[in-house]
């Protein structure tokens, strides 16, 4: 449990990096990610080869933002069961089922990695700052931010209860079914109480529903170049099937 907690907080730690990708304006990274996602999602469901060059983007970010490969990959695999369960029946019901299956897997790989990398290079706080600049209603932004905080509080609470349970239930694996109800109820009550106290402590320090992220840096020309550059790149990949082009080119040279 505590391990899971550290896992969640790893993204926060990574977001404190010092590379130029970390320093790029959060809004710009948000928009870039958005363009990336839209480009991917808009592809036909049989498409595979055109999607491949998009892998360049996540790889570039992992490399140049000094992010560790393993933990990022692990996080991406967390959604694998869902993706597989969505795609697994395709090969049975559809004539080109394997194609759509791999297309789904590839798309999910790309979109999920883009999301994770956005957080890992920006951090939740600055990201919400970016959302606020985009005039996303503060209630949603706050919801996002607090949910994100809340997760770790919840996990800590679960960890403590689980330990207390395990210490008085030697030789049991996991938690007995009969204890599930009280366990969940207790957890909810505890979390409510904790949330209430946190909210009070926020209020006492002048919290009025608006979240102030502090220094929101100005958008620099470099930031705009970043956005325009990547967007142009994505649109190009969207418009032309690059692997095909390269293939044709090579074939042309050979002939």
């Amino acid at each position, binding site marked *: 449990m505590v391990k899971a907690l550290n896992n969640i907080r790893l993204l926060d730690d990574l977001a404190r990096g010092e590379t130029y990708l970390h320093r790029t304006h959060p809004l710009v990274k948000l928009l870039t990610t958005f363009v990336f996602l839209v480009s991917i999602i808009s592809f036909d469901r049989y498409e595979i080869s055109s999607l491949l060059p998009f892998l360049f983007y996540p790889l570039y970010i992992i490399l140049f933002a000094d992010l560790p490969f393993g933990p990022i990959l692990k996080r991406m695999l967390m959604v694998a069961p869902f993706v597989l369960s969505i795609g697994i029946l395709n090969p049975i019901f559809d004539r080109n089922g394997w194609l759509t299956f791999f297309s789904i897997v590839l798309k999910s790989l790309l979109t999920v990695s883009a999301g994770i990398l956005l957080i890992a290079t920006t951090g939740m706080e600055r990201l919400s700052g970016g959302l606020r600049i985009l005039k996303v209603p503060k209630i949603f932004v706050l919801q996002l931010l607090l949910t994100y905080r809340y997760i770790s509080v919840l996990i800590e609470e679960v960890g403590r209860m689980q330990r207390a349970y395990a210490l008085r239930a030697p030789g049991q694996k996991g938690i007995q079914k009969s204890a599930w109800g009280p366990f969940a109820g207790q957890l909810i009550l505890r979390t409510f109480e904790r949330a209430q106290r946190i909210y009070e402590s926020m209020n006492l320090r*002048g919290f009025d529903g608006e979240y102030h992220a502090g220094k929101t840096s100005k958008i620099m020309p470099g930031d705009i170049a970043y956005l325009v550059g990547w967007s142009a790149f994505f649109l190009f990949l969207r418009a032309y099937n690059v692997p095909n082009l390269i293939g044709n080119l090579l074939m042309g040279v050979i002939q």
Partner: protein
Amino acid sequence: MSHHKIEARGLKYAYPDGHEAVKDISFVIHHGEAVGVIGANGAGKSTLLMLLMGVLFPDGGDVLVGDVLVTKKTLSMIRKSLGMVFQDPNDQLFMTTVYDDVAFGPRNYKVDEAEVDRRVKEALELVGIAHLSDRAPFKLSGGEKRAASIATVLSMQPDLLILDEPTAALDPKSRRRIMKLLKGFSHTKIITSHDLDMVYELCDRIIVLKNGVVVADGKTSEILTDAALLDACGLELPLAMQGCPVCGGNQETRHK
């Protein structure tokens, strides 16, 4: 507007389940005083603090900060001058870095960022954890967390500090460090605790609560030496006042 005193007038509060936590509490605390609020579990200490901070509103009676009545309208203004340190630092540290946590208050009051930075650094310096500024709060030790949560309040530059069990769950050295720190503050202080030795050292006035009522209010030297009174309130003499476990003598005659 002056915040040079805080006053409770006939406070009453009952929780929604009917439990009457505070029945009748009145006092005036003046500028620069350090007041210990003591009492057994369930005496109404925490509820009193919540009432003073305007987290709860009394069913009867008033709280005045300076000359301003604590109401929903004056709350934001009043909280600027009151800083409350929670018993559990985890409740107070909810941001990703110590810096952001300490900056949270000033930023909410729209202090400009250069000033926020100055205040945060000053507060962290004051509690001696400037080197932890970029650390995640959950990675700190108990003593460091406590120091950080005090800093989150100091950065708001309050006139009055309200501390709920500031030495709870600290090892002796950390406890000593926090006490030294608190002793150095010139703020008006209200401290609730079961750590009567700490209260004895830090406070010059004591308010004793029992079942939601003030049973004694006076000089520390008089109240914390009154064994009968303390006993009746579910407390006992501070260890420093008790006989030595080795020779049975009191502080003055110990081991002589």
